[in-house]
């Protein structure tokens, strides 16, 4: 990322900042209002379980449609054509795993965290510690990617130049995010996500219709203009089919397959997605949440298809690649082309709101996991003096995470950390999903199996990434000028996911531990919702 490049030409930084400030002001008022009733742990972590399915579904889409999927996918389609579209399909289909196998059962058996479900019938302390380690690592990778993205966006949209200016903006983003989480807890965070999702989807819809209207609502004609703008002929036509980005060599094809698998299996193992299912009163509402999320996310990705090719046709891949922020600038540049500085300001504000909302969701998830799994159950062995002290620990953790996020964002801002989101998905798919599925569906599964699949998945994924071309050995790597990339794929999922499933099985059969009583309780509760955590009535 070029740190000293000027902002987008024609952008009005003051206007962008004003629109963003209005968003922050409105959401802060709502967060304060939402905090009035936040008293118990259930209020703080799970918003009193009082959101409806549709509200939660909108919030999930707000949480899920990060800057990477909004700016990233539109940009990838504009520059690489069809290959960008492939991402969005993996991200969408993944929700069926959550719908069919995870959401309702998790809501019925857990309380606040992923660890609640994984440790349900296991030895509490080791499994909770493992679940917390995995949650913190996934959240940290994801968080770092978002904060670094914020640095790039600042450059792109606010025209803030120089290191100090960028650092200040990253710090401001971090501070606002911590305020949301500290004051509003899950309820405040959820409202921020709902507002952001609404703005994002409405904005994308307006732009989609605008783009289509320029081509008489003829999608084929839009594609033709994108092809022509890219130089026509075989070069332009390459935008329409797959392979432009990933089809070069046998290894890159395998890498893409690996990415596709991690995307589709990762979503249902992302801790911040899982935690959202606790904010509704029961399993049926959790189901409704996923349905709403699938519909909104699906429609949104259809918009990005039009916006991506629209940016290719109206702005042009060359201009996008040369702009600060490269592919991330496709959607903002398209907004500028269509509606001038005002629409750009709106889209810029939405992009910032996106980062804020996603980062807040990650922070509350990570702090809940530390306070609930590590502090209350591992350190205090389940005997905390009061729920209030657990919430206090969660708030302190949120502060610490906020500080780490700001520091990490500043340190990593000139690094190429695009692989971090893919890494977060790979860890979620390798360490979390196998353990979750075994816990929910396999009677024989036990403590050692859970520890094997969580730690095994984590270690394998991280080791493979460290020794992959994403970190060293290529011009696009994070560390340049070094070569320790003995693993050829940037995406480890193809190897790490099957291995983690295998390790979960292996650990289980190597241990004699069986607890059929506890599995009976878990299964009955998971399927019927008997004695599930109830909503708080205020």
């Amino acid at each position, binding site marked *: 990322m070029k740190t000293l490049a000027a902002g987008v030409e024609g952008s009005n930084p003051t206007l962008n900042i004003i629109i963003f400030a209005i968003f922050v002001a409105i959401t802060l008022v709502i967060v304060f209002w939402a905090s009035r009733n936040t008293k118990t742990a259930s209020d703080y972590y799970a918003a009193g379980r009082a959101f409806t399915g549709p509200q939660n579904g909108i919030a999930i889409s707000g949480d899920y449609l990060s800057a990477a999927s909004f700016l990233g996918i539109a940009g990838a389609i504009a520059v690489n054509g069809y290959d960008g579209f492939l991402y969005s399909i993996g991200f969408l289909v993944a*929700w*069926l795993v959550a719908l069919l196998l995870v959401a309702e059962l998790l809501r019925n058996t857990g309380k606040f965290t992923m660890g609640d479900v994984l440790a349900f019938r296991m030895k509490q302390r080791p499994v909770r510690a493992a679940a917390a380690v995995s949650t913190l690592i996934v959240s940290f990778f994801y968080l770092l990617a978002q904060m670094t993205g914020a640095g790039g966006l600042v450059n792109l949209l606010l025209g803030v130049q120089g290191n100090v200016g960028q650092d200040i903006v990253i710090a401001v983003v971090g501070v606002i995010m911590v305020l949301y989480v500290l004051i509003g807890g899950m309820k405040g965070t959820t409202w921020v996500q709902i507002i952001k999702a609404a703005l994002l989807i409405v904005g994308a819809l307006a732009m989609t219709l605008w783009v289509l209207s320029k081509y008489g609502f003829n999608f084929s004609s839009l594609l033709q203009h994108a092809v022509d703008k890219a130089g026509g002929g075989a070069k332009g036509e390459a935008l329409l089919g797959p392979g432009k980005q990933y089809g070069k060599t046998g290894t890159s094809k395998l890498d*893409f397959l690996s990415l596709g698998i991690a995307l589709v299996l990762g979503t249902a193992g992302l801790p911040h997605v899982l935690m959202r299912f606790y904010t509704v*009163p029961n399993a049926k509402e959790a189901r409704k949440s996923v349905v709403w999320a699938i519909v909104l996310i699906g429609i949104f990705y259809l918009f990005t298809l039009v916006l991506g090719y629209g940016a290719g046709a109206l702005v042009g891949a060359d201009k996008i690649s040369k702009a600060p922020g490269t592919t991330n600038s496709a959607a903002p540049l398209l907004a500028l082309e269509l509606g001038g500085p005002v629409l750009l300001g709106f889209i810029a504000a939405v992009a910032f709101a996106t980062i804020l909302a996603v980062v807040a969701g990650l922070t509350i998830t990570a702090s809940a996991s530390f306070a609930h799994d590590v502090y209350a159950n591992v350190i205090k062995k389940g005997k905390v003096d009061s729920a209030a002290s657990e919430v206090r620990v969660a708030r302190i953790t949120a502060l610490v995470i906020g500080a780490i996020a700001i520091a990490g964002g500043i340190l990593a801002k000139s690094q190429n950390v695009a692989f971090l989101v893919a890494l977060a998905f790979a860890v979620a798919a390798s360490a979390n999903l196998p353990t979750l599925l075994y816990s929910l569906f396999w009677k024989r599964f036990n403590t050692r199996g859970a520890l094997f699949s969580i730690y095994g998945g984590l270690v394998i994924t991280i080791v493979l990434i460290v020794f992959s071309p994403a970190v060293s050995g290529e011009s696009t790597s994070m560390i340049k000028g070094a070569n320790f990339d003995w693993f050829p794929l940037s995406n480890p999922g193809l190897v790490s996911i099957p291995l983690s499933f295998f390790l979960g099985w292996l650990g289980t059969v190597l241990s004699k531990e069986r607890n059929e009583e506890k599995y009976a309780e878990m299964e009955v509760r998971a399927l019927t919702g008997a004695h599930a*955590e109830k909503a708080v009535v205020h």
Partner: protein
Amino acid sequence: MSTTDQGLEGSGPGSDWKEVQESPDFTQLRHRLRTFVFPMTVLFLAWYLVYVLLADYAPKFMATKIAGNFNVGLLIGLLQFVTTFLITWLYVRYANRRLDPLSEKIRTELEGEKVQTTATAEGDAE
């Protein structure tokens, strides 16, 4: 709550979970759930994998034009959206008709006299 208190066995008010687990109603519920979600998961994952493999290893086929600039790749890609929405709809319909009544029955039996308070709390959200 048994989910946080360590080593505490069974939190149901005198309920024997194994007995419920082996009851005909519950066996039926589990059977209905698993016979829907497992094959469906295999189906959509296989269909997704076919799509990814085609895009990866048969780009020429995917670039075949059908109408105007609309090609096979876009068609199959959009079909992935269609099947995702369709499976979602099928599952919700199935769950409402075949799973919810049964799970509600078992839950009511299990929670006994607590039912009245629970029912009103859940009624608000319906």
